[in-house]
């Protein structure tokens, strides 16, 4: 599928239409619909088990919902495999860091640019001409745009598996933006970080979202309400697979149902038990 339309800021980049996802008889997502506009940070919040990560997996193609459609730039991408969705410009990070532990930081980020490399098996094994030139070009991009942005110069040759958790998260973000995505799915980028790292990470997310160079639309799954309310343009609240509200942070904060979902309600809880 060829989706190369240019979408202007403010237009709908990704649309979910009545997504339903079941695991056996457990309903993980129940008719979820939303529109993500280009240029915004759209947060998804909800209590544990609300279906936030399932929603991310549906968008990135790891899960295929039983019902409903996903439109990216107006094109239906339901049946597309994850690697083809990456080629369309959808990148993601994971809740539990899923970096390539045995590779260096530089190689992880290079791998993020996989879809931009061209060399195949023969030119790769000769490593002459095209491949060598291409490697240098991409190295330049990685050093100047990504490593510089994320401030990871000092660890670029270290194997990622040996780095502390906070830096691994940062490398994972670097790997995702190396793909030069238009849509970035951030699945709990702040989980398990200390205060300083949270502040850094929030700054990087804002940079990636707002800098003229990047202008990446983000979908952010997060539990840290302070960060969510500060960063997001729109917030989407899920509870047990149902959408509660989709609106600006102010609307969400004022919504009694959201408060109920987070603080718990005896009746609803009882039916689930």
């Amino acid at each position, binding site marked *: 599928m060829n989706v190369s339309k240019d979408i202007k800021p403010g237009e709908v980049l990704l649309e979910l239409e009545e997504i339903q996802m079941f695991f056996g008889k457990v309903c993980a997502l129940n008719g979820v619909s939303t529109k993500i506009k280009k240029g915004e940070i759209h947060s998804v919040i909800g209590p544990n088990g609300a279906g936030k990560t399932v929603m991310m997996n549906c968008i990135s193609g790891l899960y295929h919902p039983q019902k409903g459609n996903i439109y990216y730039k107006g094109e239906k991408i339901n049946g597309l495999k994850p690697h083809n969705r990456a080629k369309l410009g959808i990148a993601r990070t994971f809740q539990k860091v899923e970096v*390539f532990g045995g590779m260096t930081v530089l190689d992880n980020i290079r791998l993020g640019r996989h879809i931009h490399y061209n060399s195949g098996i023969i030119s790769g*094994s000769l490593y002459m001409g095209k491949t060598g030139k291409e490697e240098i070009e991409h190295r330049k991009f990685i050093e100047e745009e990504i490593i510089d942005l994320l401030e990871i110069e000092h660890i670029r040759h270290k194997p990622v598996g040996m780095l502390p958790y906070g830096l691994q998260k940062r490398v994972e973000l670097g790997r995702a933006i190396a793909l030069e995505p238009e849509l970035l799915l951030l699945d709990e980028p702040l989980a398990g970080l200390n205060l300083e790292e949270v502040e850094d990470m929030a700054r990087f997310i804002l940079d990636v979202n707002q800098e003229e160079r990047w202008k990446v639309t983000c979908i952010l799954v997060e539990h840290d309400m302070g960060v969510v309310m500060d960063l997001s343009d729109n917030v989407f609240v899920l509870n047990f697979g149902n959408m509660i509200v989709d609106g600006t942070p102010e609307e969400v904060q004022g919504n009694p149902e959201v408060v109920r979902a987070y603080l718990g309600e005896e009746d609803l809880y009882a039916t689930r038990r």
Partner: protein
Amino acid sequence: MSTTFLPCGVYHENYKQDHAWWQTKFIKSKMFLLFITLFFIIPWMSDSYSLSICNQIGYTILGALGVQLLIGFCGQVTLGHAAFLAVGAYVSTLLVLEFPWPAVFIELGLAYPISIFIAAITAGLWSVLFGLPSARVKGFYLILTTMAAQFITVDFIITQYVSQIGGRGQAFSLPLGTIKVGPWAWGVIDSDIKIYYMMIVLTIICVVGVVNLLRSRVGRAWVAIRDNDISAEVMGIDIIKYKLLAFFVAGFIGGIAGAVWISNLAAISPEHFPWFWSLWLVGVILIGGVGSIHGTIFGSIFMVVVMELLQMAVMPLADTYPKLLMDFLFIKEAAFGLAICAFLIFEPNGLAYRWWQAKNYFNLWPFSY
């Protein structure tokens, strides 16, 4: 593990220098010495016996390289690699013996080189066939499907059907002079030293090719699949395609190994490619270090040399204990098992890690902190 330290005062001014193979003059001169040793000193110093050991090492390196690529770099555990060596060897033999080559090809000595190439391609494709299950299964289950490759290929197809071609019986004999490279009279591969040169050139080409692949797009995709296949897929890697590509390259190198090895044999039979040999190649990379090209080479040298030393140690005792001679095959297998156990317990990262440690010790000396 892959990080090495540059000596003081060496700075890179551009990315090209940083991507270079050999980054300092010291390393370059070291590699030059190695080159001289391999191409001149070893052939000059060695007798036929030690050259044949070198050839065996080369064969083991070529075989283990494919296994290393699959297990160490792509994470696809394989226990049937001897099948692809067998495919390479048999395709090459059949082409040399049975194919109606035009006289020009025979005169110019092209038949054997071409047959090596075709054998490599065939073995690669054959390997892809048995790599197909890797699209669905991982780990233990994949081990079983690759073992199937061994039994189907060697024990069934080759023993039952391929060996019948030409009505020669079980073994295909390779008369002297059939293996010929180039139009010159000395192109007939009939001595250990010629096999040695052929082996070393092909080994170097394969090792260089694989190392280059590993530092370019394809190799990174393989390592990514090994480390984390789900996130590799999300980053835009078609994991099935790359897994099959890894099987192809591994089979290709295996095919080369098999095809070259026939130059060392007077006759070729299915017994040259037992299942134990597949296991042996996995042992080689376990001892050398999984996920390291150095490891493949060190492991091969270690295994071949240790087994030869063992033989030397056992033979003098054979006069007093004749049973030892009879049981040598089993002693060899026991030593193999023991070596693997010892390495897994005491040095799970293999010889390559020890090499890296030693190198760093000297690089950092005297301030190793």
